[in-house]
Structure formats: structure tokens, C-alpha cells
């Protein structure tokens, strides 16, 4: 051994004097995880984070070859996909990883919602989580345009047109994002900057806050667990028990990602032509499908209001009600608790049914 026991202790002491990390280590060693029949949902935050790391690494690798310029963007992705060694692999990991991450984030969202983990004192944990979900959708929306293929062009057109329907600020926001009245180089440059710099910085900040408050409050447990007498409650230590299981789950999630990447490498559509008609059968990514299908159903005019505006307002109010659930379901009223659960079930059913409908039509 190069280091004896004494040297090791000395080294640790040296670091401890400089880092003052022992309270944190103490906290980590005492962190415990409630064991109950819904414990499985605890893994999804971790899975989302693993996939996020994959996105960071593959995203940086893609940036080495991707060119955010109108005439070269599509060609550079083609090059990554076809002639750069393992380019297809990195790109597919990024695309599949993005989709799996959004799926994991949605599972995490709904599991915390139904377990009512948003209640006091975790209101801010919930709100920061909702904002993180919005950022994830932002990543999806901006990243989708970068390959500059036919579908991405129209997806961006629709997305920005929808946001321009927002009362008062919509027009300005859409104009700033688009960089003009038509989608072009300005849009591509702006989306690129947002995708690779603005959103990652925001995400890192918000995620740090989210994780810090999760640590501060410990894991939330469902009502049945909280109502069990203290001596009958079962816990397991985070280190090493839960952490090892976490790693196992990460390996499983990673394997799923690799299998999908290998068996169905991500392709690319024909290059966008701003003057060609929208291709027949055009559809957005699956996580916008429910909204897409919903928009198809709204009549041109709802009363005196333009259908689009009505749809945007309706979805906005609905999303706000969900996001602010900790304010109106505090756990004091049984009726409101049931209302929150019902709203969650309706949302989930709406998303599943409308997405399937959208995918099939």
C-alpha cells in the first residue's frame, strides 16, 4: 500500500480542514428512504437525471460537427449520421435519450402529483419541478428545429404561431424567438443559442435548487405511510442500500436506451423547404401530440373568440391550475384532495387518449 492508515487519515483531515464537508457527509449517511408499496416511483427522478447527463455529454459531442447555418444544418446532421465514425450512435443516443428523459420526467411528475408530494412543506420543490418540466419541453421544442428537416420546420412554425396567440405578449415573444416574421437563419441561430446555452444554464440552476430542497425535506411519503405508527414504519438507508438500487435502475435505463439506439437509430427527414406545402401526415413529437390533436378539434370560432385563442387560454388556465395545486390542495380539505386526484386522472387520461388518437389519425 502506498498510503497507510495514518496517511489516509491525515489526507482526509487536510481536505476536511479546507472543505468543511463533514456536515454534508453526515447528512448523506443519515439520509433514509421510506419503504412502502409506492417506493418504486422514487426512482424516476434519478432516471431523469441520468438521462440528462447523457444529453449533456452527447449534446456537447454533437456540437463538434453540427453547423447552425441554414444551408449546412441538414447536411451536417446527414454527415454525423452517415460518415462520421459512431456519429449515428451519438446522435441516436441524443434523440432517444431526449424522448426517454421526457417520458421519465412525466412519470416523475405524475407520481409526485398522485402521491400528493407537493403539499406543505414541499410546495417549492413541486413548483421548481414544474418549471424543470417546462424547460425540458423547451429543450425538445428548440432541439427539434436544429436538424432543419421538413417536419421540424413546420413544427416550429406551428409552435411559434400558437405562442403568438397568447394575449398581450404573444406576438412579441414569437417575433423575438423567430428573429423576424418568417422562419429562417435568425430562427435557427436563436434556437441553437437557446438550446445549447440558455436552457442548460437555467436547468442547472433550477435543478440544483430542486435537489437541494429535496435533501432538505427528505423523501415525501404517501398518506398511508405517514399514518402508520412510528415503530411500524420501515426505512432503508440511502447509502448504500437505495443508492445501489438506484445504480441498478440506471443500468437498466441505460440498457433500454442502448437497445433502442441500436435497433432503431434515429433518422432524418428531407431538408426543409420553406415554400413547399406541409407534408401529408405531418405530426409533432409524441409529447406534443395530445395538444396537437386537441387543436385540430377546436372549431374556428368559439363564441366571439378565435378558436386558437380559446384553445391556448383553456390549456393555459388548466396548466396553471395543475402547477398551482399545492396552493389549493393543502391537505386540509378531503373534497379538494379528491378534486386534485380527479384532475390528475382526467389529465392523464386526456394525454393518453388524445396522444393515441393523434398518433393513429
Amino acid at each position, binding site marked *: 500500500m502506498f498510503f497507510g492508515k495514518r496517511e489516509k487519515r491525515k489526507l482526509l483531515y487536510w481536505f476536511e480542514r479546507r472543505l468543511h464537508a463533514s456536515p454534508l457527509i453526515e447528512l448523506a449517511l443519515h439520509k433514509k428512504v421510506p419503504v412502502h408499496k409506492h417506493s418504486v416511483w422514487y426512482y424516476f427522478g434519478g432516471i431523469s437525471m441520468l438521462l440528462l447527463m447523457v444529453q449533456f455529454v452527447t449534446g456537447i459531442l454533437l456540437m463538434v460537427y453540427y453547423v447552425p447555418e441554414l444551408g449546412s444544418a441538414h447536411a451536417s446532421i446527414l454527415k454525423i449520421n452517415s460518415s462520421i465514425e459512431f456519429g449515428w450512435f451519438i446522435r441516436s443516443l441524443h434523440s432517444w435519450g431526449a424522448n426517454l428523459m421526457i417520458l421519465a420526467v412525466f412519470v416523475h411528475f405524475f407520481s409526485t402529483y398522485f402521491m400528493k408530494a407537493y403539499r406543505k412543506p414541499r410546495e417549492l420543490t413541486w413548483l421548481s419541478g414544474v418549471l424543470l418540466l417546462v424547460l425540458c419541453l423547451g429543450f425538445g421544442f428548440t432541439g427539434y428545429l436544429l436538424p432543419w428537416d421538413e417536419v421540424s420546420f*413546420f413544427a416550429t*412554425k*406551428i409552435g411559434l*404561431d*400558437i405562442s403568438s396567440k397568447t394575449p398581450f405578449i404573444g406576438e412579441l415573444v414569437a*417575433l*423575438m424567438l*423567430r*428573429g*423576424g*416574421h*418568417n422562419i*429562417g437563419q*435568425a430562427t435557427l441561430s436563436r434556437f441553437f443559442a437557446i438550446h445549447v446555452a440558455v436552457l442548460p444554464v437555467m436547468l442547472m440552476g433550477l435543478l440544483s435548487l430542486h435537489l437541494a430542497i429535496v435533501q432538505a425535506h427528505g423523501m415525501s411519503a404517501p398518506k398511508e405511510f405517514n399514518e402508520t405508527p412510528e415503530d411500524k414504519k420501515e426505512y432503508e438507508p440511502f447509502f448504500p442500500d437505495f443508492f445501489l438500487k438506484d445504480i441498478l435502475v440506471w443500468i437498466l435505463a441505460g440498457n433500454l436506451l442502448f437497445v433502442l439506439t441500436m435497433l432503431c437509430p434515429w433518422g432524418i427527414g428531407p431538408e426543409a423547404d*420553406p*415554400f*413547399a*406545402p*406541409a*407534408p*401529408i*401526415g*405531418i405530426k409533432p413529437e409524441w409529447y406534443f401530440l395530445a395538444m*396537437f390533436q386537441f*387543436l*385540430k378539434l*377546436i*372549431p*374556428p*370560432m368559439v363564441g366571439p373568440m*378565435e*378558436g*386558437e385563442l380559446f384553445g391556448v387560454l383553456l390549456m393555459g388556465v388548466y396548466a396553471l391550475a395543475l402547477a398551482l395545486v399545492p396552493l389549493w390542495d393543502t391537505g386540509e380539505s378531503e373534497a379538494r384532495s379528491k378534486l386534485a386526484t380527479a384532475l390528475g386522472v382526467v389529465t392523464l387520461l386526456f394525454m393518453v387518449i388524445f396522444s393515441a388518437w393523434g398518433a393513429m389519425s
Partner: protein
Amino acid sequence: MSEEIDILDGEKKIGRATFVKTAMGGFAIMWGGLTLYPVFRYLCPDAKDEEDASSKIASLDIGKVTDFSPGSGKNFKFGSTPALIIRSQDGEFHAFKAVCTHLGCTVQYRKEKNSIWCACHGGAYDPNTGKNVAGPPPKPLLALKVEVVKERVIVSNA
């Protein structure tokens, strides 16, 4: 307690602490505004750029009459906007800006249904008038003027 000082001939008295706090707040807002305004202007799309790019045109020669068979449609570029020309079965020409009035996708002529159709959300328009007839579009398509001059098809702003 902070000392009261006279401003405005003793009509209004504010404490020194209040004065300093207000002044600091005011400076902070001013400083923030001074910093953010250039950033906002920097990010605002340049109107001049857009005019160049849009290459405004009043009319466009899109080909010979014989290029368009009756009962067919063709998308083309009209300045900076996508446009669509349709030659109906009886040989008449109709042209529109091909921008769906719903969410701005580019529409196309569908021969088998004899209608103008938007693939994005399934909106449909009448191929002769551009009137919105089905799906979510709230308004008719913007019409363009078509003239046949010496066997050439000329499209211009209506």
C-alpha cells in the same frame, strides 16, 4: 429614529433612511433598465434585414398557360411568401397565398378531393374562392390576382 428633513418647503417630510432606500431602489431600476434596454434592442429582429429578405414583389411570371393542366395545382414562391396556383377543370386560374389562416402551415391542392388542404391540422379551403370550408381555419386564404398575358401566367397582389 432617523432625522426628518425638509423637502418642498416643509410640506412633505421624509426620513433619511426612507430617502436613501428610495434613491437606491430608483437607481437600481434605472441601472437595470439601462442594462436591459440594449440587450432587448440587440435581440429585436432588424426590420431592414427582413425587407431585404422578403424581396417585395408586385407581380411574378410563373410560366406558360400550357404548363398547368386543368384540375391541377402548384406551389410556388411569391416574394417571401409561399403561394399556390390552381387551374380548375374549366381552365380558370385561381391563386392564393398558401399560408393557412389557422397556424401558418403551407397549404396544398389535393386533386382527388378538389380542395385546398392543410396537412398540419386538416383545414380545407374552396379551390375557387379560397374560402375556409372545413377544419379549424378561421378565415379564407388571401387571394392573389392572376392574369394571362400573351399566354404567360402572371400573378400579382390583389
